[in-house]
């Protein structure tokens, strides 16, 4: 049985206690909302896209340590990055969060570094928590689609 330390790595608890990029952005920033219907968690992702870059991102809402730290690390990882790179990071992260080996990654994705986000790898050993870790990411994807539509 995997231990709690596999799930709650120190970096995760750090992001949970001191979340980065908390807050809201006024329009025209895109606001998208995600729900985890199992536990009632809610998250709002605010996204400013400017000249092909994710120029700013803010996160609000409530959730468990896994969903909140994942959102915090996500915001740090994508802020200031070109949209194509952000999509690569999302694909890399989501493939790390899947139990099956899926070939959804594209060639360039291999060059993307997940950095701190690697700490969330342990979540896969606790399948019921995968939805917590991916909530912010799915919400970000929606926002990206809206912002670039």
């Amino acid at each position, binding site marked *: *049985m995997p*231990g*709690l330390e596999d*799930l*709650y790595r120190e970096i995760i*608890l750090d992001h949970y*206690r001191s979340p980065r990029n908390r807050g809201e952005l006024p329009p025209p920033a895109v606001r998208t909302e995600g729900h985890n219907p*199992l*536990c*009632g*968690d*809610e998250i709002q992702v605010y996204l400013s896209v400017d000249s092909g870059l994710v120029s700013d991102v803010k996160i609000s809402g*409530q*959730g*468990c*340590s*896994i969903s*909140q730290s994942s959102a915090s690390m996500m915001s740090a990882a994508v802020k200031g990055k070109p949209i194509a790179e952000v999509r690569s990071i999302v694909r890399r992260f989501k493939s790390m969060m899947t139990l099956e080996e899926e070939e959804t990654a594209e060639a360039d994705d291999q060059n993307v570094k997940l950095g701190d986000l690697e700490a969330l790898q342990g979540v896969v050993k*606790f399948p019921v*928590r995968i939805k*917590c870790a991916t909530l912010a990411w799915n919400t970000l994807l929606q926002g990206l689609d809206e912002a670039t539509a």
Partner: protein
Amino acid sequence: MSKDFANLRQDFPVLSRVINGKPLVYLDSANTSQKPHVVIDAMTDFLENGYAPINRSAYQMAAEATDLYEGARTAVAKFINAPNANEVIFTKNATEALNLIVRTWGIANLSHGDVVVLTHMEHHANIVPWHMLVAERGIVLRFIPLTSDGQLDLSNLDALLTDAKVLSFTSMSNVLGTINPSKFLCAAAHRAGAIAIVDGCQSVPHMATDVQDMGADFLAFSSHKMCGPSGLGVLWGRQQLLDAMPPFMGGGNMIADVRLDGFTCAELPAKYEAGTPPITEAIGLGAAVAYLTKIGMHNIRAHEIDLATYSMNQLTQRFGDDIVIHGPTNIEVRGATHSFAFKDLHPHDVSQVLDQSNVCVRAGHHCAKPLMRLLGANATVRASFYLYNNHQDADALCDALEQASEFFSPS
């Protein structure tokens, strides 16, 4: 805890399970209950020695199966003191039972502007079917509010019930554990000219139920929360209402005759049991009802009052201001179900740590989101006790909470 209740733990094979060297501490019975040997054996025996269809074949085994299935119905009727076993309808679950009322009685009797009164502590199963009728028919919903300690605020009840056609309420909150005054509410509904529908999912497994004394018109409850199998619910309704209602699902078993130009319905209870029912499950519920009756519902309630008192005291004494237990503090009006907030920890994180000690609790919104919004929480941890729990289970819960507290405290 009395000796009888200490001994009956042996009746539940799963309670002897050890995971990673630690015993199972099952505190999720408001969600679904564990099953005693007698229920498992009754179902196994039927499957091994007598499985056959009911109501439609002449051979001996089919006749025996029909007797077992109808015997279960009679046992359930007696368990809730229904005047007539034909008023007991087996459904897929309690959710289907509540939907059945809305889709039959509701469709036949409610139109634009008609008022249905619910409470702020209902399970989604007693809210969403009515919302669907709001969208389709334009009925109007009113909600009985709650007091600050999680009881129904009945100070304005008569006004809320004015011109109402229905009062539909839970007899016990699955979140707060609040036991509602069902008899009083049924009488108030009738005075206002409304029918009374009772969601008995949380009370029927834990205390004696008498539909005639309660004065309800309909009662819905589930098998799996009362030591019976999943896949089965019960709808009890007064015969004159059930007779007058249109059918629910059409198909085999529910008809008296089918012609090219139409059909006529079967008599109760077949009218509401289209298709092959959960035969094995009904036989399992029959065994569960016999088991609970043998122990005595009043004894079970007394045991749970003891558990609720002990666990509440332990939680408050050991954690003080770090724990906020929702719902009434008066044990007379609450069951052994505790929903709580623990420090500033998210319920998911708490339950994850509790799982390391095999302490099984529910973390989430408990299918009662309007109530959760009122509590100002996305989710709570819920520990719920049943006849097979004991003081050690409450102690294990507290010990595991202490571990959660240590684990998440800033180092």
